[in-house]
């Protein structure tokens, strides 16, 4: 099957400091990948670079997304092409309501596909359906984007947005950070409900805990800007019990 994303020898720096030092990664439709690694290994940099954050500079390598050069696309073009980044720290936007924010986003996606914007009733129906996936109260939609949301609500909102935009590849950056057990279960269940044979997920996480709920097919360990180990889901368990040291020493 065709690769969803193909990352080859990706190097990236910020303010002249090299963070990613040659990443190779291939994700196929239907797969769930987990990227684990200690603090400062470059996990969040990788997701930011893939989503198109401007202050990172790609110095070497290529990223092909559905056959297109991802690195030449603007952040919005990446979204239209089917890439989604779940933020580790979702941004609060006071004054912009959730409903206005998501409606604008959904309709921009539709515009790119040559579809007419959703009517208010159509949007409402879709929104209610997707809110149910993450067990969110529709009342939240009239509030400012993430304003006054608890940590758990922010992460559920990320998964709600993912459900609304129906991406081909979702990269979930530390989605488990700051979540209690119940919120973790809701978020993970939401992600699992959205799983299909034609889409894929990259779960970036620090801990094994999330991977009890979202079971990965392939686990990678990132260290100092490089993937130092790739294996099946048992690798996550091994990291949980033995830590990263044995892998790092192997380096």
């Amino acid at each position, binding site marked *: 099957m065709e690769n969803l994303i193909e990352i080859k020898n990706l190097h990236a720096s910020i303010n002249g400091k090299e963070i990613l030092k040659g990443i190779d990664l291939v994700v196929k439709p239907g797969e769930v990948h987990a990227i684990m690694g200690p603090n400062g290994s470059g996990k969040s940099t990788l997701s930011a670079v893939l*989503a*198109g*954050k*401007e202050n990172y500079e790609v110095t070497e390598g290529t990223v092909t997304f559905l056959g297109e050069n991802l690195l030449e696309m*603007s*952040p*919005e073009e*990446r*979204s*239209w092409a089917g890439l*989604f*980044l779940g*933020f580790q720290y*979702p*941004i609060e*936007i*006071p*004054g*912009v309501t959730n409903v*206005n*924010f*998501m409606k*604008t*986003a959904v309709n*921009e*996606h539709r515009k*790119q596909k040559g579809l007419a914007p959703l009517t208010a009733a159509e949007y409402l129906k879709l929104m209610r359906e997707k809110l149910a996936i993450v067990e969110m109260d529709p009342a939240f939609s009239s509030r*400012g984007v993430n304003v006054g949301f608890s940590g758990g609500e922010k992460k559920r909102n990320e998964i709600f*947005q993912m459900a609304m*935009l129906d991406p081909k590849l979702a990269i979930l950056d530390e989605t488990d950070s700051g979540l209690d057990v119940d919120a973790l279960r809701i978020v993970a269940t939401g992600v699992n409900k959205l799983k299909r044979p034609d889409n894929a997920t990259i779960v970036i996480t620090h801990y094994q805990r999330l991977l009890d709920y979202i079971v990965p097919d392939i686990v990678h360990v990132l260290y100092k800007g490089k993937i130092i180990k790739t294996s099946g889901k048992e690798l996550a368990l091994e990291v949980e019990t033995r830590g990263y040291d044995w892998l790092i020493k192997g380096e």
Partner: protein
Amino acid sequence: MENNYIYIPDKSLQDEVEFRCRVPLENTDQVFVVDGEGAHRGLHLGKGEVMPRMLQIIQVRSRQVEEDLSYSTDYVLEEGAQAKVLLCSHTLSMLDFVTHEDVNIKLGERAVLDMVVMQNEHNKSRHSSAFKVEMAEGAVLNLNIITLHGGGISNTVEVALNGKGGECSLNGLYLADGTQRVSTNVNIFHNVPECHSSQLFKGILDGESKTTFSGRIYVAKDAQKTEAYQANNNLLASRTAKAYTQPHLEIYADDVKCSHGATVGSLNEDELFYMRSRGIEKGEAKLLQQQAFAYAVLEKVSNEALRERLHSMVESRLRGEFSECANCSKHCC
């Protein structure tokens, strides 16, 4: 409801200036003031008189002459009187001219005035408005000044709180681009105890526009239990726009709550990236941010239909379209 304003009906005005307001707001009476004519009649409400409908005063500068125009309007609300006023200013003549307008407001005990000022003039027009307000005990003033367009707009607001328990809320939104200039000067005098005043002025600046804000809160020695707040926030959408802001607090009493804050900033990059990562195109994302910035001021407008209209006018203005009410017959900019 009769009022003292000269009423120039749609029809007679049509031939002369081709201006009509085709979409009046509900429960609103419209009067036209063309080139200042009739402005002096003002509004006078006797004791306890409550205007059930909003009065929309549409000031139009239409004559093809460059000479300065000055006029003055008095609003007198006696004890317990209440009025809602929407004061619009437009220009139909494209000439380079100056308009001076004095708005004198006298509020008797417990009188309530809710006034929205909507300024939408052409690129060369210069308009200075001086609002002078005197408030007696328990009087309430809500004044919202929305400056959408104009070459050089100057608003001076002076409020004297002369009776206990007066409440004054002053808010303003100014949008400027090109080489437009907008200046705002506010002076609030808390002359007696137990009055409240709040100010929220926000500006969105693009192009090479310049705005100034100067706000002063004066609290007299005996004006204990005063509460007075002031905020001025400016959003720069270009590198060449300049916003100057100067807050002053002058407090002689010792039992007061007062604060002021002034900011000048640009669009938040993290918010922008977040929106773009969801597929919201950059220009649209910036627009959403600017609308969000303007939101707090427009929310101070109590009339819902008017508030909705102002939201959409601000949106079209920020989109770089000319902002006007739907179906407006005016083609001046």
